[in-house]
């Protein structure tokens, strides 16, 4: 695996750990800038949906708005409620913030631009994202506030129940990659490596082979990020800000930073695994700049869809949310994995996998749409309207002429 060793790049032979240090600094800088940019973009795009203009005062077209917010948050006093559980309250932001940055490591921005090309990149992502949940629950419990506790419990329930379908669906993809790797007797060891997955998609992105996989992965990512329509844990109208209601100042911005960083990273992984990442249309031998542009283009397209869903979709109730995951997404992902395994075991062509997955996806959409239709049958026009004429009633007719 070609891997940039900064020590050579900079022409001076640096020991390993300095090299690692430089990469860490690079990650932190890039992520904070990205978070600020995403916050600004979201506010602008949401504004367009809501027929308003969004921030315009600070800087050209309001671009420095999120920088100004960050400055305000830095100078704001971060308060801790006296009855809060001191250490749990103070450590929570770090537990929520650090795992999200760790996810950055295995992501292949281009063929060679990877912080560390981990063999088990994809599994590593899920392993580390789970820890983010610990931070959330610590925040909810630590701030000794009923709203925070409720928000944390909702966040934990939601994250657990949506991580499962995501995992299973990514197993489906890994099966395909592993089959390709072992076709000429090689070991399927690299199947879980994100870069290998990207390499496999020179001709057909996996979204064509696994459309259901992409859909479930994105729904799971939405739930993982607590974004509408799954933003129960931080629903303003019920739990007033969820688990970070007692935080202010820099601690509060950690949670916000973690959320937007996780947004970018999950979407990048999604686009790498399903949309071909840096590889799809132009293949490997094209310049690094173009490959980075490709990844960023695909990511921003998916992010735009996420912002769009925030403006238009209301919030699901907690029990509907759980039912949707356990009763709909999980069975579908299990069936998906089984179908892949059976087809690959009996040596069927990959196009069969694509068709079965497409069929499953259409079935899922049909199911959801059908349920909504039954719910809303007669919803649109469920009113009956009487003409506004005083109705004739005979004095002693108990039923009253209607």
């Amino acid at each position, binding site marked *: 695996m070609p891997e940039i060793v900064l020590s050579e790049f900079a022409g001076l032979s640096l020991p390993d750990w300095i090299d690692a240090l430089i990469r860490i600094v690079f990650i932190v800088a890039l992520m904070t800038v990205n978070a600020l940019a995403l916050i600004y973009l979201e506010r602008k795009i949401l504004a367009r949906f809501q*027929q308003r203009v969004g921030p315009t005062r600070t800087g050209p077209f309001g671009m420095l708005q999120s920088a100004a917010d960050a400055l305000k948050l830095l100078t704001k006093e971060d308060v801790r409620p006296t009855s809060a559980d001191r250490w749990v309250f103070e450590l929570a932001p770090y537990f929520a913030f650090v795992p999200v940055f760790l996810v950055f490591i295995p992501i292949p921005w281009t063929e060679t631009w990877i912080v560390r090309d981990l063999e088990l990149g994809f599994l590593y992502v899920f392993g580390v994202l789970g820890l983010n949940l610990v931070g959330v629950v610590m925040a909810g419990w630590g701030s000794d506030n*009923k709203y925070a506790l409720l928000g944390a419990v909702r966040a934990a329930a939601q994250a657990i129940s949506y991580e499962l379908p995501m995992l299973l669906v990514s197993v489906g993809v890994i099966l395909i990659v592993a089959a390709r790797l072992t076709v000429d007797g090689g070991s399927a060891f690299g199947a879980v490596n994100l870069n290998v997955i990207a390499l496999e998609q020179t001709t057909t992105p996996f979204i064509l082979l696994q459309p259901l996989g992409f859909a479930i992965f994105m729904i799971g990512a939405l739930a993982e990020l607590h974004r509408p329509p799954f933003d129960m844990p931080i629903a303003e109208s019920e739990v007033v800000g969820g688990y970070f209601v007692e935080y202010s100042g820099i601690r509060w911005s950690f949670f916000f930073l973690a959320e937007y960083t996780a947004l970018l990273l999950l979407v990048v992984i999604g686009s790498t695994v399903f949309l071909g990442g840096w590889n799809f249309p132009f293949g490997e031998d094209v310049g690094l700049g173009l490959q980075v542009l490709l990844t960023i283009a695909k990511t921003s397209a998916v992010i735009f869809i996420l912002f769009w869903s925030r403006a*238009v979709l209301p*919030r699901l109730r907690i029990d509907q949310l759980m039912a949707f995951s356990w009763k709909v997404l999980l069975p579908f992902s299990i069936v998906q994995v089984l179908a892949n395994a059976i087809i690959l075991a009996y040596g069927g062509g990959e196009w069969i996998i694509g068709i079965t997955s497409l069929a499953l996806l259409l079935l899922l959409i049909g199911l959801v749409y059908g349920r909504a239709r039954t*719910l809303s049958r007669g919803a649109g026009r469920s*009113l009956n*309207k009487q003409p506004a004429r005083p109705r004739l009633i005979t004095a002693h007719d108990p039923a009253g002429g209607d």
Partner: protein
Amino acid sequence: MTQAQVTVEPVVVEEEFDTVDMNINMGPQHPSTHGVFRMVLTVDGEQVKDVTSYIGYMHRGGEKLTENLDYRGALGYQDRTDYLAAFNNEWVYCNAIERLAGIEAPERAEYVRLILAELNRILSHFMFMGAFGTDVGFFGTAFTWAFKERERIQDFFEAVSGDRLMYNYFRVGGLAWEPYPTFVEDARWLLRQVEAGIADIDELMTNNEIMISRCRDVGRMSAEDAISYGVTGPLLRAAGVPLDLRVDEPYSIYDRFDWEVPTGLRGDVYDRYLVRLEEMRQSVRIVAQALDQMPASGPIMAEGLPKVLKPPPGEIYMRQENPRGEYGIYMVSDGSDKPWRMKVRSPSFHNLSSLRHQVRGSYIADAVIILGSVDIVLCEVDR
């Protein structure tokens, strides 16, 4: 959780792991209580076991103050009870005194009053659409779309009465001053904009699957319960009872227009939303017809009104159909220049009393939506 509400009984193993009931306090400062209203939910996990509501934060003793003002003095107070439907309240108060004193408002004034009152109903329902959308989860989209139309109506009201919210434009016997010259043309232009706004809101919210699954069969209230709680207005009509005072107990000139009274089928949150949406369209129809039939010129104030109004001793319970329900003024006069007793029957007060019946057994997220669908205005609840 430092202090648990439940005292620790002697150790009983299996009961130990029941989830303990938590008392969640919503209000008086809470984003979704639409004003200063406190609701304590006894919650087991997400299920709401019981609700206790605390009101009275906005009580200003209006009825007591009115007993010391002369009949015309308390008009300003009526704007401040239900500030989202100020024209309707003023109209009820003026009608009450006019019937008590036997005064008749001229034809043209009655038309202008009706037009402004119906536009005020549309204004109030737009406010409901915005607030309800935010409760359900439309992050601000429904709110800004609804307020775009509201702003237009408020500009029109400001042109007519000089103020955006507390109009104080009606007088006993007619209007304060002549409506501005292009009143009718502007009103027609406004109707077209409002119609487009209603279509936008309808398209955004009505057939949204998540909205339907969130609101259908939530907070259902049967017709008998609604009537027993004294619930009136869109809530009662959503429960299937076609009681609309403009039809059943006609007042003013409503019998000259043809329109329809929408009633829902199941009395749940979704039907209330649909009834209010339909009512906005019906109000547009009424205003359009009123603008056509309105006499082009004529007096706007009854003649021969005494300087100090002393209605003969007697009493009247004047009630009209406000956006939230039946708004009544029970006025008792003892022949002096001050009302002996003035009681305001506010619809939100009684609609709110049925909240506990609707919310028990639902989820926390439902409690917020049900409170939003009841559409209360706290100033009117506490008077």
